[in-house]
């Protein structure tokens, strides 16, 4: 039997087993041998990708930057094969209580900002960059309260954002940073009652996860087939629709890396890549 295309993914939720098992069946029916390995955190996944233990990685945006950073010294090139339509052009909102006096990010000087997990691009790194670029340096001009739920999963688990939202309501923090879609979700599920909060600021748009290939492992033709099959998945297909629903997308889009510039700036500003790169250098 030929070696399957081996995907790495992070187990941020039990549903990922259902998702990748379903994709495995779907790919097999179309003649693509496919298997997957689950990691507990993105750092291990990226390290294993560089070590050629997997062919393709389903990477968070921070993991993409980590992969890109360690690829070059190894003579490799990271490529984004595909991404979810719902991962393009995201924004993060900085919420404040409806009656709060703040009118702009600059007003948050001296305030306490609730963010998600420390390694969450959308709920921590990007909104803190937005704040910093508005002239309010995190930790110096304002306090940052991190709701570190499941560090290593790069904010895929929304628990940190939810805790930040709750902290905003109960007055523990003065502002909370959550993904725009999560602010809708929190309104819908009652975490944020209607009219209780308002959007103070919105980050520029950014992109989220992608399938990353370092040009190693399985033959390029198989990677190409994998990408073609992903892009051919249709929400009209009742077999694949539940999987797309679980993974939270309507269609796969060709990968692009233009939406990671802000995160790269945030990483540079906050040194977010350093611990991982130092760890890799030491290993």
């Amino acid at each position, binding site marked *: 039997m030929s070696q399957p295309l081996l995907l790495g993914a992070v187990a941020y939720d039990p549903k990922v087993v259902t998702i990748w098992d379903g994709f495995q069946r779907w790919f097999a029916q179309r003649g693509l041998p496919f298997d997957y390995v689950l990691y507990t955190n993105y750092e291990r996944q990226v390290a294993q990708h560089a070590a050629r233990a997997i062919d393709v990685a389903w990477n968070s945006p921070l993991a993409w930057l980590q992969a890109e950073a360690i690829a070059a010294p190894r003579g490799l090139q990271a490529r984004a094969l595909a991404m979810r339509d719902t991962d*393009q052009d995201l924004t993060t909102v900085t919420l404040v209580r409806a009656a709060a006096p703040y009118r702009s990010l600059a007003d948050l000087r001296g305030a306490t900002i609730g963010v998600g997990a420390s390694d969450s691009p959308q709920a921590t790194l990007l909104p803190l960059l937005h704040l910093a670029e508005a002239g309010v340096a995190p930790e110096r001009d304002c306090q940052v309260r991190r709701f570190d739920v499941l560090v290593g999963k790069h904010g895929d688990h929304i628990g940190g954002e939810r805790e930040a939202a709750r902290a905003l309501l109960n007055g523990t923090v003065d502002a909370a940073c959550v993904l725009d879609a999560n602010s809708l979700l929190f309104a819908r599920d009652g975490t944020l009652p209607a*009219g209780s909060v308002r959007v103070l600021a919105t980050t520029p748009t950014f992109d989220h996860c992608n399938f990353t290939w370092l040009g190693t492992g399985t033959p390029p033709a198989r990677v190409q087939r994998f990408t073609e099959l992903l892009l051919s998945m249709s929400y*009209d297909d*009742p077999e694949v629709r539940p999987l797309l629903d679980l993974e939270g997308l*309507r269609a796969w889009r060709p990968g692009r890396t233009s939406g990671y510039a802000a995160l790269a700036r945030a990483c540079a500003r906050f040194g977010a890549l350093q611990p991982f790169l130092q760890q890799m250098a030491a290993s």
Partner: protein
Amino acid sequence: MSEAARRLDLAELGFDAGAHVLVRHALAALPEGAVLHLHGHHPDLEVHARAFARQLGHAGRTPESAERFAAATVPSGAPLRHLLQRGPATDARRATAERALGAAPDRVHEAPPAHWGLAARGALVEAGAPRFDFALRDKSVVWGDDLAAMYAAGAAAQWDPATAIAWHGKAPAPELEVALVAVLTYLIENETAALLVPARFCAQVHPHFREVLQLLALQAADEARHIEVFMRRAHLHRTDLGLSTAGGQASLHTLVVEPDFAAASFLLSVLGEGSFVHLLGFLHQHAPDDCTRQIMKLAAVDEARHVAFGMAHLRWQAAREPSLLGRLATAIERRHSALQHTAGLNDEVFDALVVLAAGGLAPAAIARGFAAVQQLQAQMDAGRRVRLQQLGFAAEQATALSALHTRNFM
């Protein structure tokens, strides 16, 4: 497509308070690619609309200044805030969905597919739902005439033990109370079997046959109530219950483990509960107090409904499956063989029935009571024979089969 249909005035409503409902409605009325102009006053409308659109596969953008300026006026006076372009995925669930026939009882599928699952009859069922492998999925083996009316009558006849029965009253003479408690102990375990059997099959019936499910559930609920009132009456004046015999439980065991729906309905409803209607009538007639009399009357009415459902279902099946009567006859014979070495109705219950019908322990009264119990058994037998013939058994065969029915009555 009118211009008005392309505009949605959300006024003060935001996505934090349900704006998505109106947006969905408006988008559903538009063809793919059409643009919906969102007007509203809510300060966070743009950012929320953008997130909403992205999640559902719609495109969206903030209007240009010129577009804002040229926008039509809406009733609330709200400005144009966002342009939503309807994506392709809105109708995907419906496009491949199929209608699970109709809601009315005459729109029932002969063999509903497993993937219709729990969907209401008449619902539009999205493709890709999991298979529910209900064992009883053929109309021919579960259905019957007038089930909807039967369920409606059963639902309307539900009664509240707390108010329907006068629980306060003088205790009967000790010998009558002891006899009654012995009978109630027997009734409780029989009603427990009569609860378990429909409950077990209820979980096996394809929910497309909604009325069957409802009738079985109602039957189980009736028995739950009977267990409650029998238990409460038994404890009204005494602490201890009577004897539960091995023979009695052996008889009920054969009923509870019967795997075939038709055979179980036959043994339980047509033969067992049919006999119980007579027994409860007997106890109503010879009850030592008003409380017991009320209980037996109400329980008998419920049991009669269960018999009617069993008969309706088996008549339906017999008309479609010529071999059914043979299978049912075999079921009685098999059960008879299994029970032939057991004691049947326990002496304590038989004697208790005699004492209750006698109304005391005087010899002459006991003779009357004994005769009444003999008459009860004859009535039970006659009732069984009538129902067997109604199902299509010849008179002679009905007589033979009735004689094989368990001596434990149920």
